[in-house]
């Protein structure tokens, strides 16, 4: 089984090919160029390098959100177009969950944070059980950093933070933390399509996939206009 992983929820653009549990290729760029210009050329490149023709792809694992609305849609529309053309299913993978999944086997609580603007981060809390099972302790959600720290402080365990929310919030985290905190090194500090594809495989085997037509991003936030309307 060949899974194409796609990740474009934030600044990082990443694509990967996972064949029967073996990562054939991964291409990750953490740079300012727009995903519209990078994502498909990157997919083209990993297919070319691994002599893969698109028709060989069995499923597309897409990092579904939360994240930049535009970034999510570029990834989503790319995955939907591939799914439509290849008539293959999409696997919707929670972005924050996939970030934590790349820290496989860690004994810490895993807490990815993505800068969500408006004084919030997109975050979630995860851990790996003794038998290696990936456990969601707190589902991904937008949250103020203060509230997140209250939650992890109450858990009384060492927490590993990662994600693009670390640079702007590291000082605040150290200030508020009543538990030991760690920050992930660069190679596991951003979104990676390899983790999206690998978690996608777990979901696929559990029957959690959908048609390309049905897929939609998980924004976890309303548009500004809807928020204004609700407030009226």
């Amino acid at each position, binding site marked *: 089984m060949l899974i194409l992983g796609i990740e474009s929820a934030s600044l990082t653009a990443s694509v990967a090919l996972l064949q029967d549990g073996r990562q054939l290729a991964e291409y990750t760029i953490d740079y300012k160029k*727009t995903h*519209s*210009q*990078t*994502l*498909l*050329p990157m*997919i*083209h490149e990993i297919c070319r390098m691994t002599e893969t023709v*698109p*028709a060989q792809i069995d499923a597309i694992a897409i990092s579904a959100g939360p994240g930049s*609305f*535009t970034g999510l*849609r*570029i*990834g*989503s*529309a*790319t*995955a*939907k*177009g*591939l*799914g*439509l*053309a*290849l008539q293959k299913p999409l696997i919707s993978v929670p972005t924050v969950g996939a970030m934590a999944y790349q820290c496989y086997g860690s004994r810490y609580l895993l807490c990815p944070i993505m800068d969500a603007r408006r004084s919030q981060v997109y975050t979630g809390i995860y851990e790996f059980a003794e038998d290696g099972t990936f456990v969601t302790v707190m589902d991904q959600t937008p949250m103020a950093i203060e509230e997140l720290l209250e939650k992890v402080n109450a858990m009384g365990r060492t927490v590993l933070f990662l994600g693009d929310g670390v640079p702007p919030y590291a000082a605040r985290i150290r200030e508020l933390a009543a538990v030991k905190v760690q920050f992930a090194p660069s190679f596991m500090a951003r979104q990676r399509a390899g983790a999206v594809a690998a978690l996608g495989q777990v979901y696929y085997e559990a029957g959690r996939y959908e048609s*390309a*037509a049905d897929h*939609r*991003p998980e*924004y976890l936030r309303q*548009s*500004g*206009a*809807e928020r204004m*309307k609700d407030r009226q």
Partner: protein
Amino acid sequence: MKEDVYILAIESSCDETAAAVVKNGREVLSNVISSQIDIHTLYGGVVPEIASRKHTERINQVIEQALEEAGMTLEEMTAIAVTYGPGLVGALLVGVAEAKAIAFATGKPLVGVHHIEGHIAANFIEHPELEPPFLCLVVSGGHTHLVRVKDYGVFEILGRTRDDAAGEAFDKVARAIGLGYPGGPKIDRKAKEGNPLAITFPRAKVADNAYDFSFSGLKSAVLNYLNHAKMMGEEVNDADLAASFQHAVVEVLVSHAMEGVKEYGADKLAIAGGVASNTALRARLEEECQKRGVAFYRPSPILCTDNAAMIGAAAYYEYEKGVRHGWDLNAIPNLKLGER
């Protein structure tokens, strides 16, 4: 014999998610439009973020329906075409990413199309005899252009709006008199009950280019008229106001077009864009063209509104010229006409 060219075209530049299959640039095999107008009406205009979300939700179904109605498979398509500008960037990006992925997965060539070139090409669909050169008046919610179409895909812009597009002025005036969104068709309907000569509104001239348009002064004059009447406690006849406003817009559009016809000795005039559906504009241009022995071309209202069939028509001529876009094609919200 030349092989037939089938183009799957995708359009998502504003608030319509659309896909079509077009044969040889002129024959529409399907033309599916999923309009979001109901939701945007709640907000009194197009909300870009909502438009982009709706495109993402609907795009696959719309494309699948277009193929099904054409009775064709993706495999049978010659090329994939998509609008890549101008328009709302978030909305454009959905169609662009989708089209690129489909082209990549099927190994088909990708042709990016300018939205306004699409509107102009809508005329080719219903008028098989129409060939460049001709003059075209493009009027929509986002654009007001008087264009010389010198050849397929070769344009000279004679005039453009300096401020509001004609359709934008319709929307703003409609909102001011409580008709709601979208303003174009609502003013058109209301104006039928009113007297176009009841109120005299200014027709702005642009000093340094006689072909350029300006509608913001007219819009302000209407708003001032309303404010003044309100302050004086006078009743405003909405139908007369709508008719007089529309008359002012139409007369400016018609006079500019006729000036162009005269200067360039054009024997063909076409109209395009959402406002090209306006019944008063169509009637007046018809009349003026007839007087001058100029052939007048106008697409049916369904092809004036944003649709993908027009994108397929424009794409055909680009495809034939050898235009191909790469996997790095980006959405360009302010793409200029004739630019590649």
